[in-house]
C-alpha cells in the first residue's frame, strides 16, 4: 500500500517537472528554423579531427618504415665466411654462426621470398670477393718466397766448398797436414 502511494508521489513529482519543462521549452518553430538554417550552411571543408587522424596515420607509417629499415640487421642471422689461406674456398665451406653471443636470442626472420633472394645474392657476391682476395694473397706469398736479391751472385766464390765443409776429428796428423798450406809442407821436405 505504501509502495503504491510512493509511486503516486513519484508520478506527481514527474508531472510537476513536466509542467515546468513545458513552460520553459523553446518554441518548435524556432528550433526547426535553426535546424533548417544549419542545413543551408556550407559545411567546413577542413575537418580538424580528420586532419589529426591523417597526420597520426602518416606518423605511424613513417615510424613503421624506419623501424623496418633499421631493425633488419638485428633480425638477420649472422653469417661468417671462413676461408683459410692456401685452400680452395668451396672445400672449406661456410660456417653459420647463429649463436655468436651468449644471452642473445635469435628470432626466426619472416620468410619473404624476395628478401631471401636478395640475401642469397649478397652472400654469393661476398663469397666471390673472398675467393678472389684469397687467390691474390696466395700468389703474392709465392712470389715473396721465391724472391732473390740481384747481388746474390757476387757472394759466390770457388772456395765456398772449403768453408762450408768441416774437418773430421778422428783423422791422423799426416792426413791433417794435407789441410796445411803447400809452403809449410815444402819446409819439412
Amino acid at each position, binding site marked *: 500500500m505504501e509502495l503504491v502511494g*510512493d*509511486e503516486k*508521489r*513519484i*508520478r*506527481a*513529482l*514527474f*508531472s*510537476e*517537472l*513536466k509542467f*515546468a*519543462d*513545458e*513552460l*520553459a*521549452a*523553446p518554441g*518548435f518553430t524556432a*528550433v*526547426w528554423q*535553426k*535546424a*533548417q538554417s*544549419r*542545413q543551408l550552411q556550407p559545411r567546413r571543408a577542413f575537418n580538424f*579531427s580528420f586532419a589529426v587522424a591523417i597526420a597520426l596515420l602518416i606518423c605511424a607509417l613513417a615510424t613503421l618504415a624506419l623501424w623496418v629499415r633499421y631493425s633488419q640487421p638485428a633480425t638477420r642471422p649472422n653469417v661468417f665466411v671462413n676461408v683459410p689461406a692456401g685452400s680452395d674456398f668451396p672445400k672449406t665451406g661456410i660456417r653459420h654462426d647463429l649463436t655468436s653471443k651468449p644471452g642473445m636470442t635469435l628470432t626466426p626472420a619472416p620468410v619473404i621470398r624476395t628478401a631471401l633472394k636478395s640475401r642469397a645474392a649478397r652472400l654469393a657476391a661476398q663469397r666471390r670477393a673472398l675467393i678472389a682476395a684469397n687467390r691474390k694473397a696466395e700468389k703474392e706469398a709465392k712470389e715473396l718466397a721465391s724472391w732473390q736479391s740481384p747481388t746474390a751472385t757476387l757472394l759466390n766464390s770457388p772456395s765456398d766448398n772449403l768453408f762450408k765443409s768441416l774437418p773430421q776429428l778422428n783423422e791422423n796428423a799426416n792426413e791433417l797436414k794435407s789441410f796445411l798450406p803447400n809452403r809449410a809442407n815444402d819446409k819439412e821436405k
Partner: protein
Amino acid sequence: MTRSASVKIDRMEIAALKAELERLHCASFGWALSCCRRDRTEAEEVLQTVYLKILEGKACFRGEASLKTWLFAVIRKTAATEYRRRFVRSLRLTSDPETNPARAAINESQAASVERSEIQERFQSAMKNLPRRQREALHLVFYEDLSLREAADVMGVSIGSARQHYERGKKRLRQSLATMELSYGISWRREENPGAI
C-alpha cells in the same frame, strides 16, 4: 518515378512529419533534457541536431515502431554523440562549456525559475544520482507515459532489462527521497506539505 516527383513526395512527407514533430515537441524537449543531465542549452542543441538529421534524411522513419519511440531513440543517440563530442572538445581546451560564464548564467536563471521548490530540487538531485539506465527508464515511464515495452525500444534493450532498470530505479529513488526527508527534515509528500509542489 521522376526526380521531381520523388522530391515532391519527400516534401509532403517532411511536411507531415513536421506536424507530428510539432505535436511531440514538448515531450521531445523533456526527453532531451533528461538525456543531457537537465542542461537546457545542450538539450536545445540536441533537438536542433535531431531535426537537422530528419531534414537531411540521416534519420529516416520507416514505420517499424511508433513515431514517438523512434524520435526518442534518435534523441537519445544524438545526445550521447553530442556528449562525446563535447568531451573531446573540452580535452582540446578550446572553450569549456561548463566554465563559460554567459552560458552558466543562463542555466542558472533557467534553473532558478524551474526549480522553485526545495522538494523539486531534491527530487532532481536524487534523479541525477541514479544510474543512467535507471533514470531513463523512470523518465520514460513516469514522465513520458510510455509502456515498458516502448521504453525498452527507446533504450535499445530487452523488455526484461528495461523492467529491471525501472524497478531498481524506483527503489533507489524512493530510498534517496526518504534519506533526504530525514536529513533535511522536510517532507516531500504533497499532502503533508502542499505548498512545496
